[in-house]
């Protein structure tokens, strides 16, 4: 670095790191306190609320850049303590921030993508709240988004596992809240809320794995601080390797939950119920990569335990292929991208599993750019179609001409699109850039990072290489399918016919992201390995020297091109329109079905994994809890045992006593006593004259008698 010398003299900004959390906190508190009022009072209310949130997020980017600058001079980084949190006996965990090359990379990604998506949302939510009929929720959206930035920043900047866990669950909460943002919409009106709940509970299963890992770690290492644990790790591993295996596998459970890997990936596709910026930010670019970050962060533990590395690689590469196949069979534009995300996360997890931590992080960064771009463009497409639908609804002439769209018109279904290339030019071009990058064609960012992973796999686990390469072919195929179905050919619905381009507040962030997608590969080009040198300061011994294998790169490029050609063969505009023109009854839903019908059915239904989980886990649990609640707890324990056996038995016993013994003997005595008492009372009553002076006289008599007794005794 030629400016190394100048930078090392520059002031250090490490002390600023808490502000990456405080800025969005301030933003969200502002919007909680004044958001509702501003929205109500000011005509430009939405702009104010949105920009406050965006600026809060943008300031975190500024802070991250300052930290980056400081790190250039002091690459060893720094731990910045803020406050003591929990301290019991030997246990202590603090609120303190770790600034090092790994965490700052994450901060930069989160803040860049986060800020762009905030700005995009200003425009997107303006229409979304009107489309969904509750403009009052505009402010709430930005509160949740800022809350997400807070949690994510806590996650990536923590210097101990417990604080990381706070962010870990915090982003889960934001995910829950934002998936269910339109909680009164979706299937049966509750579909979105159910999707949110599913996400929260599924990831929580992973979180419990994380918790158990924390417990095991603390009792093995006596601390939860990264630095202490990593320093002690070799020694503990030498003493009891099984502990390290336990910890790493528990962490793997956490990773499968948060990063949507087999078997806990099922929540991510449903999470698309959230507004599209949410899908872009949380469910594509940042939150779901937390698992990758976790493994990279714990690199020092994983390299000690090859079995765990094997498991992680297996899970990652299997997921990559598995999800890629499902993506082929989807019609919802966001579902395709969702399964694509699961698949790409599989790539990353496999990479960090193999020990290629830099490759994994590299792909994490580029994926954040191009997948964020794809989702945001998809949002733009969806709103373009909605605008078209809206246009038709409000233009009587058009309404008469075109067929009614009906209440169950789905603006996200790719079969309702087509021909958007000419109607939404900007969106088309940025989408195309994202798609090519995802498909892995040089020289876009996705190519470089994916290639690095494949090269590592080729070197380390050849079976993983095979799985990932096939997944890459599928990736190129389904992206081709999607682009062709959405943008090419003729519009297949009236809404698509009248689709309109989005406003600049949405397209400008798209263009910036597209730029990042094009240039993102620069951060770790072969021969330079900037990111690798950068990461070396943090990951140290865990790092692999990546090498560029020409053969692998060429092969994957060729395979991707072949897949694209295959996609063109099936879905080229002429062929697809011919297919579409056939009578609806005779025509299957997709051309691919003609060739591989059963397989397509399998993919379309996602291998029936959801149904399997319902049958194997959820329904039994519900039945069990009903059984416990109604039969065991209530009817047996509450009604029978307590009411019948205990109280009832006691009642019968007392009844017996009352009937036989009580009435015969005891009652006789009692009644006799009663009569006696009455007679005595009648006599005594005459003493009660009611005259105070009589009473006083008797008292006086008593005094005299007692005194006399005392004297004469």
């Amino acid at each position, binding site marked *: 670095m030629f400016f190394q010398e100048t930078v090392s003299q520059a002031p250090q900004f490490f002390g600023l790191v808490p502000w990456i959390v405080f800025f969005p906190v301030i933003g969200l508190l502002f919007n909680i306190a004044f958001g509702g009022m501003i929205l109500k009072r000011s005509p430009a209310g939405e702009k104010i609320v949105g920009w406050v949130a965006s600026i809060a997020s943008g300031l975190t980017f500024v802070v991250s850049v300052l930290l980056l600058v400081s790190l250039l001079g002091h690459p060893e980084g720094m731990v910045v303590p803020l406050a003591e949190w929990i301290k019991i006996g030997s246990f202590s965990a603090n609120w303190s921030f770790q600034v090092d090359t790994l965490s700052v990379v994450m901060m930069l990604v989160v803040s860049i993508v986060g800020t762009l998506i905030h700005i995009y949302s200003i425009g997107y939510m303006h229409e979304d709240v009107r489309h969904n009929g509750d403009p009052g929720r505009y402010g709430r959206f930005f509160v949740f988004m800022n809350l997400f930035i807070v949690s994510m920043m806590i996650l990536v900047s923590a210097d101990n596992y417990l604080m990381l866990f706070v962010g870990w669950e915090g982003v889960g909460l934001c995910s829950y809240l934002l998936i269910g943002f339109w909680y009164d919409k979706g299937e049966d009106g509750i579909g979105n809320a159910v999707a949110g709940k599913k996400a929260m509970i599924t990831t929580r299963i992973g979180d419990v794995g994380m918790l158990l890992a924390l417990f095991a770690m603390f009792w093995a290492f006596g601390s939860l601080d990264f630095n202490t644990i990593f320093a002690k790790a070799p020694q503990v591993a030498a003493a009891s390797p099984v502990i390290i295996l336990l910890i790493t596998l528990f962490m793997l459970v956490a990773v499968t939950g948060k990063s949507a890997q087999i078997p806990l990936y099922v929540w991510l596709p449903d999470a698309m119920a959230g507004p599209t910026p949410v899908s872009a930010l949380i469910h594509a670019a940042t939150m779901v990569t937390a698992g990758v970050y976790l493994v990279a962060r714990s690199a020092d533990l994983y390299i000690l335990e090859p079995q765990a590395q094997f498991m992680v690689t297996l899970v990652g590469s299997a997921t990559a292929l598995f999800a890629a196949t499902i993506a082929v069979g989807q019609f919802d534009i966001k579902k395709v991208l969702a399964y694509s995300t699961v698949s790409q996360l599989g790539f990353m997890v496999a990479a960090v599993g193999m020990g290629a931590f830099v490759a994994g992080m590299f792909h994490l960064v580029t994926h954040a750019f191009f997948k964020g771009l794809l989702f945001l463009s998809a949002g733009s497409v969806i709103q373009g179609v909605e605008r078209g639908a809206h246009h038709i609804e409000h233009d009587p002439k058009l309404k008469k001409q075109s067929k009614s769209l009906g209440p169950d018109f789905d603006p996200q279904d790719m079969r309702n699109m087509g021909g958007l290339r000419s109607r939404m030019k900007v969106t088309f071009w940025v989408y195309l850039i994202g798609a090519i990058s995802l498909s892995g064609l040089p020289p876009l960012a996705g190519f470089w990072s994916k290639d690095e992973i494949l090269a590592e796999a080729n070197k380390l686990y050849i079976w993983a290489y095979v799985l990932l390469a096939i997944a890459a072919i599928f990736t190129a195929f389904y992206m081709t399918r999607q682009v062709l179905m959405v943008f090419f050919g003729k519009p297949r619905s009236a809404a698509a016919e009248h689709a309109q381009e989005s406003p600049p507040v949405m397209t400008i962030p798209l263009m910036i992201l597209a730029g990042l997608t094009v240039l993102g590969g620069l951060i770790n080009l072969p021969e330079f390995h900037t990111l690798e040198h950068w990461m070396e300061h943090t990951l140290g011994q865990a790092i692999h020297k990546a090498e560029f294998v020409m053969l692998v790169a060429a092969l994957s490029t060729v395979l991707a091109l072949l897949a694209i050609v295959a996609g063109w063969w099936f879905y080229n505009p002429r062929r697809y329109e011919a297919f579409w023109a056939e009578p609806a009854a005779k025509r299957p839903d997709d051309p691919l079905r003609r060739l591989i019908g059963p397989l397509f059915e399998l993919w379309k239904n996602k291998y029936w994994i959801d149904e399997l989980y319902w049958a194997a886990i959820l329904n039994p649990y519900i039945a069990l809890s009903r059984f416990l609640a109604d039969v065991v707890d209530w009817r047996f324990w509450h009604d029978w045992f307590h009411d019948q056996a205990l109280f009832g038995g006691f009642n019968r016993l007392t009844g017996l006593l009352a009937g036989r013994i009580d009435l015969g003997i005891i009652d006789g005595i009692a009644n006799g006593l009663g009569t006696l008492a009455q007679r005595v009372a009648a006599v005594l009553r005459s003493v009660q004259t009611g*005259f105070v*002076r*009589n009473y006083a*006289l008797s008292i*006086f*008599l008593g*005094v*005299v008698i007692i*005194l*006399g007794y005392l*004297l004469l005794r």
Partner: protein
Amino acid sequence: MIPDLILFFGLALVAVASAIGLLLSRSAVYAALNLILNFTAIAVFYLVLDAPFLALMQVTVYAGAIMVLFLFVIMLLGAEKLSTGPTLPYQRPLSILLAVILLLEAAYALFFRSSPGAPPAPALAGFGSPQAIGETLFSAYLLPFEVVSILLLAAMVGAIVLTKKPRRRG
């Protein structure tokens, strides 16, 4: 000795005479005035018995406050006329009989059951002074003192509640 005797019997005469006056007085006002006289006499006895603080209290609280209260009530009620209904039979003779017996018993106790009294030694300096009273009151008897304050409060509240006219509805 002799002056003491004269003082004692003089005052005792006043006290007993005013008590008898209370017993026999026709009207409640006279009764009250007799009682005041009696209280004053007893206050002097307190002085003699080295209890100057109590003597002052006797005059201020009893002869002052309480008796004024009595007089107020007498004025308020103006109740001088008592109906001449049938009195309780035997009440008066029995009472007098019992009173005589009580006196006899007391005399018996005084003359036969107690050792002949020698005059007590002169009291120590400061005995019965306000300071001594205060020291005892606020150390050993603090709790009863506080309790009495609550009692007085309760009495005040009670008096107000009792004399308040029932609220008219509407």
